[in-house]
């Protein structure tokens, strides 16, 4: 019965998994001499993908609810600055609190403006994207904020538990939580219902405004966690961190089969979507393409995958 939870069940829904397997195999064969399959390289892919994957999980909820959040990258940058500043002045716990509060606060603003004032989330978060980036720049005086606390660095981004990078652990734990929340809780249902048919959801007694607020709160909070992971990994908080991530995140989610129009999507799909983008990036680097060629190839591959994944239902 659990497997029956999927809403549409044609092969196109699984295009991200097929695409991932296909591209992985192609790279494994063509790039075997350049170390694509080496444990080191694979862990590297996982590490590079993790932060995008964490934001993509939350973005799945927002897109499923029929909204969008363009400010995630900027929030990550801002949170890396706020947590970095708090870390150097007040210590570990205040740093984490500062990072999370940054996300909650920004998310509450995004959510309120969208849900209760009724401004489209596209515009609200477009504005917030600039505002958060500017705020981070202003707070840090445009210079990087050094992050030198060993615990912070270990927990956020750089540590390993045995052979497993802690970043991968973050993805697994948060991924399991997010997947369960979307698939198995009343909250997840309300998200899908709000995006699938807002009027019908409202007529069913669902507080659709609250649901949208919660979804936008989620992305901003996830983005602030991502910001702290950036800070831990790069040993500094910088307002530029996460620049352009909103596009990678949305690409990962849509690749993963989530509808841009709301009402359908999976967290696991989004994680695999993020991995797919990571594998493509890595493979293209190993192939020796320079950055400009990587960008073009990545663009083509993403559009292709999404086009294949589009359902044909009229």
């Amino acid at each position: 019965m659990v497997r029956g939870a999927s809403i549409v069940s044609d092969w196109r829904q699984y295009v991200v998994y097929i695409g991932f397997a296909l591209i992985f195999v192609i790279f494994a064969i063509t790039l075997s001499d350049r170390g694509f399959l080496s444990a080191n390289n694979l862990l590297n892919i996982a590490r590079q993908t993790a932060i995008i994957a964490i934001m993509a999980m939350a973005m799945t909820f927002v897109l499923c609810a029929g909204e969008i959040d363009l400010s995630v990258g900027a929030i990550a940058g801002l949170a890396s600055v706020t947590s970095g500043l708090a870390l150097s002045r007040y210590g570990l716990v205040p740093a984490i609190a500062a990072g999370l509060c940054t996300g909650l606060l920004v998310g509450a603003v995004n959510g309120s403006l969208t849900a209760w004032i009724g401004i489209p989330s596209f515009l609200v978060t477009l504005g917030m994207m600039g505002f958060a980036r500017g705020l981070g720049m202003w707070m840090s005086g445009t210079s990087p904020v050094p992050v030198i606390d060993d615990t912070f660095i270990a927990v956020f981004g750089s540590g390993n538990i045995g052979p497993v990078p802690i970043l991968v652990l973050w993805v697994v734990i948060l991924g399991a939580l997010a997947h369960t929340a979307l698939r198995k809780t009343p909250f997840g249902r309300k998200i899908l219902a709000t995006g699938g048919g807002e009027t019908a959801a409202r007529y069913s007694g669902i507080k659709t405004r609250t649901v949208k607020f919660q979804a936008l709160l989620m992305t901003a909070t996830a983005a602030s966690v991502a910001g702290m992971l950036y800070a831990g990994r790069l040993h500094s908080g910088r307002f530029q961190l996460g620049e352009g991530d909103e596009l990678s995140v949305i690409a990962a989610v849509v690749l993963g089969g989530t509808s841009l129009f709301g009402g359908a999507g999976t967290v696991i799909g989004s994680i695999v979507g993020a991995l797919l983008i990571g594998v493509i990036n890595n493979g293209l680097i190993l192939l020796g393409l320079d950055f400009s060629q990587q960008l073009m190839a990545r663009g083509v591959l993403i559009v292709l995958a999404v086009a294949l994944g589009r359902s044909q239902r009229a």
Partner: protein
Amino acid sequence: MSESSNAVEMTGIKKSFGGLQVLRGVDFAVKQGTVHALMGENGAGKSTLLKILQGILTPTEGSITVFGRQMNSFSAATSRASGIGMIFQELSLIPSLTVAQNIFLSREPRKFGLLVDDRTARERSRVIMSELGMDVDPATPVQKLSTGQMQMVEIAKAISQDARILILDEPTSALTGVEVERLFSLLKRLSADGAAIVYVSHRMDEIFEIAEEVTILRDGRNVATAPVRQFEIQDVVEHMIGKRVGSFSWRPRSVDRTRSPALEVRSVSGPNKPINASFEVYSGEVLGIAGLLGSGRSELARVMFGIDAMTSGEIRVKGQAVRIRSPREAMEAGIALIPESRAREGLIAAHSIRTNLSLPRLGDLARGLFLDGTKETASATGLIQRLRIKATSSSVPVRTLSGGNQQKVVLGKWLAMNPEILILDEPTAGIDIGSKTEIVDLIRELADEGRAIIIISSELAELLAVSDRVLIMSDGRIAREVSRDEISVAAGEPTGSADEGVQIAKAEHNLQVLIQEVRLNAPTY
């Protein structure tokens, strides 16, 4: 001379879709300078006939002559070129453009043969508007106008394209009283200037006021064409309904009205409609609400369910005053609504039957933080069986189901909530006769279980088959209450079970007349 004075002459028009014969030889002629009403029940063939006149559909047989000239090809363009203008019910204006830009859309006056000349368009619009006695600034964006003004612009647009035959389909359903008066004086002026106007409406008071002639369609045939003054309301209804034998029959039930009512609505008003509505429903009772399109029936339901705000008044459930500001609060008070629009308000089309069924009661289906999948599936399977929903499993998307089965899913959603008070808004619209019968039976069953039921329906046969009492709404107000006795008396004494259908048909006839009379007797504005 009499031949040439006809603006439109449609003779022996037949039209069939697949094997279904919708028009079976209709003759329809409209004289120049008259307003000609076209009437008939839903499905009588009115809109098909009008679509043929507009050139959207091609008749299977028959000929059309416009101003003495035979139409040989049928297309929207030829119709328009021969002077036929349709005033759309769903307005065809572009809200963000100005009045003038809309009037001259796609045939804008040009400057240097290239640039759009807005100023000339405005001036020419102003001339047209003032000739028609309209007081609207051509530079105003259409979205800032009232519905009535938009309709005026729509008419101005048609006139500016030299339309001399205007078709209006239910033009007043969204208008206020003053706007209706203004529309009527404009139509009278246009017809005095020689335009031929085809006027479609269910509102007989309007027909009697504005039209000179009337044609009544029934089952794809024109059953009467005559000057309006030769008719009384009863005659029109008689022609529209005919000697049809109803397919539903009334089953006597008893309602205990000595206990306090399940629901009391006291002087309730909404944002626009309803106005000062008061009534009560008892447990085990089915209360029908009848009225024409736009009479405020659905608005009343929406206020009771907390979708539209209640601006004044009070709602009591089992004697206790309740505050209903959201569907959630209505549900907590034990009220459920089967909404008017199944597709938009009732269901999430792409989601499964099970997901849709669970939607109003996610809290009940959860164990701790999580949804109980087993319980959810069991509950869905139970409802599918109870309501005889035809589907291979509970996980198929509801959009793949037929209309009747979709409606059963909506019913199931709310039955699972076990509501004390169930409001059904047009529960049988657009579904097959088999499902209709099942839903009618289900409504009786639910009332027998002791629930209070309110049913809103335009299909009077069904309304009469289930209702213990009927309220008639008009212009947002509850205009009249009709008791079962009144209906029965009008229908005559039962003479045997074989005559049940005839009785219902008589009752339907009687109720239709009452609905129309309520409007005739209403105070004018």
